[in-house]
């Protein structure tokens, strides 16, 4: 019997995992963590991540997809240097309405002999969370095991102030929209500054995503943001290619950060110190 598209998509073996480095702005752009990104089955209409997850949300299969992605990521993570932490995207809906996800998460990590302290869960929210107490409980259980929490797409959609208070994340991931043309846009700078100020007050770090120009990168650094994730520094790649490329974009002439992967670095904040893999 022919498999439906959703059945194909939910098979971890049909997914591919790429990783994109998150860099520290200071400290010679050392690699701070890797975000694991999943691509859909090759040769289908939904190979692209944005279309894949759009399809999954329309099928209301977020929880099943998050489990499938986690399985694929754990398998790929075996090749990631052990001192690097790994960010995994999980829907808020999954954490709030699928009680067994956290158990599944811990079981998968045990199966692959991966330490929970290496992981950061990036909470993705595209729909109102159905069960906030359940979400809070899931986050608490993850935290108790050393997992860090990030709030994705801050400034957009459902990633609002309430989520910031309820989740108390270790990171805000500031959406690419806010870094665009930052140098020339005073209003954008004001918004970014407000997020940085809020993060400082909450003892939370900010990761600026999707920076497209060196000028915007400089401006992000000036605003006090400590962590960046950008194709101009290094696009997402399979882990093997990332290691060969030295965590650099093709054609980049900046020094490779391979020599600064060691976790013993000067910390610029106590929060940063807490989040580095021991």
């Amino acid at each position, binding site marked *: 019997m022919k498999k439906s598209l959703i059945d194909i998509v939910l098979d971890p073996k049909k997914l591919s995992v790429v990783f994109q480095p998150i860099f520290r702005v200071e400290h010679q752009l050392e690699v701070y963590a890797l975000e694991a990104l999943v691509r859909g089955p090759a040769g289908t209409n939904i190979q692209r991540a944005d*279309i894949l997850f759009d399809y999954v949300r329309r099928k209301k299969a977020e929880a099943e997809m998050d489990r499938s992605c986690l399985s694929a990521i754990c398998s790929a993570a075996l090749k990631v240097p052990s001192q690097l932490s790994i960010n995994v995207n999980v829907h808020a809906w999954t954490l709030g309405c699928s009680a067994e996800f956290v158990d599944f998460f811990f079981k998968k990590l045990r199966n692959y002999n991966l330490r929970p302290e290496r992981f950061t869960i990036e909470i993705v929210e595209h729909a109102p969370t159905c069960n906030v107490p359940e979400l809070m409980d899931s986050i608490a259980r993850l935290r108790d095991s050393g997992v860090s929490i990030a709030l994705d797409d801050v400034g957009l959609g459902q990633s609002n102030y309430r989520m910031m208070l309820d989740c108390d994340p270790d990171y805000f991931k500031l959406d690419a929209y806010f870094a665009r043309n930052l140098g020339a846009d005073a209003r954008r700078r004001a918004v970014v500054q407000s997020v940085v100020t809020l993060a400082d007050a909450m003892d939370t770090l900010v990761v600026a995503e999707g920076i497209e120009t060196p000028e915007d990168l400089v401006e992000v650094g000036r605003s006090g943001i400590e962590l960046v994730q950008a194709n101009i520094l290094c696009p997402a790649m399979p882990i093997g290619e990332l290691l060969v490329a030295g965590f650099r974009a093709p054609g980049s002439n900046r020094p490779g950060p391979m020599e600064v992967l060691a976790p013993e670095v000067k910390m610029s904040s106590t929060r940063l110190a807490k989040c580095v893999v021991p």
Partner: protein
Amino acid sequence: MKSRILILEDDDQLVRSYKEFFSDEGYEVDCAQEVEEAEALLAHFPYSLVITDLRLSKLGFSGLDFIKHVRQVSAQTRIIVLTGYSWPEIEAEALACKIDAFVKKPTQLQELADTIDMLIGVPA
């Protein structure tokens, strides 16, 4: 730039035929076999034209829901409805959604291509 067309069809054989024929005609062709797949594609690509069967065998008359969705997403996208059934009430509802053409199945691919050409022009 090639015109991009989206075909919603759950028959594997027809999907292969459409993709091959209309690609050869010079269009960018995406074929979706589920409504949710088609809706996800619509959200990410600008389609000049959508072709949908009115009735998708496993899903009842979801072709009609899909037509309404296309109209919500884009008033400019042209819509051709294919149907092998005679359901006057459903056809009337489809026409009320401002579809651009009704084509009765079975139809020759060239006849369908001629209808597409009429609606969005011949590819360069």
